[in-house]
């Protein structure tokens, strides 16, 4: 009995309840006849797709700024990096010159621009947060909203030539830009390696105005369709997430990382050990923002689309809810909180929709249910923000 109690204590009651709910949902899903392979494939894909965005919460929390609702700043940095990179790739005819490698180049350039932008924006944002100590989370929520609104103006003003990005008529960028002719699915979609793609290039490079590109089979281990069953193992995506986790883990064990965690946990303790608390908070905010940029690029490549304008508005909330469900508190968060929390949150969303659809067949209902479930989990997570024992 005491062993059971201890186990519950370690897992934490919120995680236990949500975990059981998740399992119940999966069982129901299988009972109503959903295909197990595609169901589990979806869960895994969405889990990894969101995980880096959730991981972005860890440095923020550890440095003492609480949940970084302003992760939208990182998200827009990543999006800006992506569109700039795609435009460069198009204008310079990368696919004509480099073939399949152009997709990888585009992805790397997008990451590079995104990370550099996010680092600067994040540091500036950290300076702001140092001036509003005590109400970081409220301020960051509105900073996040404002960043999205401001970027709406930027998106509409950008005069890009890439047909995937710009509106077919008029100027400005599309709401949703397909990554089919760019880096979409490189790390998670087996089709990229089994089928060739026709990619538009600027006029004057060749007669057809497009090139056909086939990613090398040698790289197909990055996205494996296990035994042709429809269960996809997005190894590339998992590796990127694992790498991010490793970097953060190492960072949190470095002198700077430990100083940052101490500053977040106990400001006076940190000051009494000669640590500059403000600069540690800026560091944490910047790292968090950078992870947000990497996270949205990984999200977009998995999803296959870049979502501009208001799409990322609530992504911060989903990330916050995930890590809270994972057992983090607004004072302490760990990588295991990220892994567990993202699985539970995204898992439930992935499974609940088809289940609801199968049970009640009304056309608009799934969207409504999705909103209810998402916000319900966020609310629950915030009330239980104390976290389990680590």
């Amino acid at each position: 009995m005491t062993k059971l109690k201890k186990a519950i204590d370690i897992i934490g009651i919120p995680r236990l309840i949500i975990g059981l709910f998740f399992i119940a949902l999966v069982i129901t899903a299988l009972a109503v006849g959903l295909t197990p392979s595609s169901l589990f494939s979806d869960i895994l894909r969405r889990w990894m797709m969101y995980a880096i965005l959730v991981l972005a919460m860890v440095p923020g929390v550890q440095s003492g700024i609480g949940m970084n609702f302003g992760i939208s700043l990182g998200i827009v940095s990543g999006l800006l990096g992506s569109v700039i990179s795609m435009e460069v790739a198009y204008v310079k005819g990368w696919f004509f010159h480099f073939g399949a490698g152009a997709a990888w180049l585009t992805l790397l350039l997008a990451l590079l621009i995104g990370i550099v932008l996010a680092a600067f924006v994040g540091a500036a944002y950290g300076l702001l947060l140092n001036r509003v100590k005590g109400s970081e989370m409220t301020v960051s929520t509105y900073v996040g909203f404002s960043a999205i609104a401001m970027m709406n103006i930027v998106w509409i003003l950008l005069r890009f030539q890439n047909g995937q990005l710009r509106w077919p008529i008029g100027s400005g960028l599309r709401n949703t830009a397909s990554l089919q002719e760019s880096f979409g699915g490189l790390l998670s979609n087996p089709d990229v390696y089994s089928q060739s793609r026709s990619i538009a290039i600027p006029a004057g490079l060749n007669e057809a105005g497009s090139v056909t590109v086939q990613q090398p089979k040698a790289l197909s281990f990055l996205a494996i369709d296990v035994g042709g069953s429809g269960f996809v193992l997005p190894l590339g995506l998992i590796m990127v997430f694992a790498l991010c986790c490793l970097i953060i883990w190492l960072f949190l064990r470095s002198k700077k990382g430990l100083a940052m965690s101490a500053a977040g946990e106990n400001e006076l303790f940190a000051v009494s050990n000669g640590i500059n608390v403000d600069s540690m908070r800026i560091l944490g905010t910047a790292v968090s923002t950078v992870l947000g940029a990497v996270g949205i690029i990984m999200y977009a490549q998995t999803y296959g689309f870049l979502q501009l304008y208001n799409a990322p508005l609530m992504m911060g909330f989903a990330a916050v809810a995930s890590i809270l469900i994972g057992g983090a508190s607004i004072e302490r968060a760990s990588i295991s909180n990220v892994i567990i929390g993202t699985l539970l949150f995204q898992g439930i969303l992935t499974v609940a929709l088809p289940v609801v659809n199968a049970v009640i067949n009304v056309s608009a209902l799934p969207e409504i249910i999705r909103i209810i479930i998402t916000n319900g989990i966020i609310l629950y997570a915030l009330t239980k923000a104390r976290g389990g024992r680590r």
Partner: protein
Amino acid sequence: METEYLLSMNNISKEYFGNRVLKNVDLQVKAGEIHALMGENGAGKSTLMNILFGMPVIHQTGGYEGQVQLAGEDINITDPHDAMNYGIGMVHQEFMLIPAFTVTQNIKLGRETGKPNMLPLIDKVFGRDLDTLQWDEMAKDSRKALDSIGMMNIEEYAKVAGMPIGYQQFVEIAREIDKTGIKILVFDEPTAVLTESEADRLLEIMRLLASRGIAIIFITHRLDEVVQVADSLTVLRDGEFVARKEVAETSYVEIAQLMIGRTVEKLVEDEDTDKRELSDDRIALELEYYCVNMPGERVLDMNVKIRDGEIFGFGGLAGQGKIGIHNGIQGLFETEGNVYVHGELLDLEKRGEALRNDIAFVSEDRRGVGLLLNESIERNILFSAMQVKNEFLKGGLLDGKKSREHSLEMIRLLDIRCTGTQQTVGSLSGGNQQKVCLARAITLNPDILMVAEPTRGIDIGAKKLVLEHLRKMNREEGVTIVVISSELVELRSICDRIGIVSDGKIADILAPDSPDADFGLAMSGLKREDVGE
């Protein structure tokens, strides 16, 4: 009993969770008398007053034993409202005023006079809470109360915010006076926050009130004030009644002696022979015109030289500034003046400067400053050495093996009772937390160790171990140790010299075997010469 006491509290005892904080204490006050209630911090003064006021904290923890009589009749005060009805009032040390309200509003708060509302129905439905307030009358009452304590120049319509501290205190007094039928007025260390002239004014007002037949209980540490205004006094020590004296029949020295008491208990045995050579030429730490702006513990213009290799103690009452000393050097609060370490000026503007100059600290606020409660014992022990001296790092990362070995050694050395190096510090007992703090400081290998309240809230066994270890570090490794403590016994048992801090300054530097009275006088900011004995 020959004299008729207005208030008499007899045989009062109180227990907090099995801890007896008051033992058969008596307090008697006559009408029209100023009675000083004296004792060190923790002597039981506040608890006694809480009983008098029927504070919830008393009744939630099982009430008290003993008997309270007002004008010869047994009374039972179960909540602060009762106390008010009996005519007992209090002037708090921290003002209970609302800054954004006017003087009148503050004086009348909760006791407003009103007349039934114009709309009779409202009165019937909501009761008198929605009465129309009669500000004119209330202002008149306030004026009267202010005038009666000679505060003609405080305007009753002025806002409290921005008033000088002294005025705020007088507004508090006016509020108590305004309560009808006030019989007993308690002043809780009223002069602690006042300037000298304000304090004189206050004492005058106390005399004035007493002359009108109000009994005044005056809680204070300041001997000179007691001798100046009080008629009689009661001294408490460690929750026990020590004596009731008429001021006219006693002296500074006697009162001081009563407050300190004879505690011969030696906490640490000095078994080894002392081979240290202390010299006034070798100064480890010097404070010169040193000020620290720590709220509640200000250090004002302190000058002291601590010799290399000695154990120096800072004692004194709470709020006098001893706690500010190390917090300033540690960089937690703004400082002025000069601090020299081995003759070299320390740049206190720079973060972590003291640590880099081999000064280590054990904070008085274990949980607030001294520890990362959610982190492991290991992380806590290593943290400072890692950050300041880059120890326990391998390739920029924490060296797990080395740090575990070191923490295990510390756990053994200081006998930290835990389940392992990974246990979170928050789940340890107070004594073991204190040992972790000490371990962190020792890990820095300091030249100078500043330890504040080393034994606060820890059991006797841990206390002995901690003090013994400090002495050992001093004797065997030649570490200069500065102990800041409220417990005189502790200071007297391990220190070579003890500086008593009063009003942010060193009142006197005494040898541990100096007479008790000298310590008592120093705590009131006096020297034996000052009182002419």
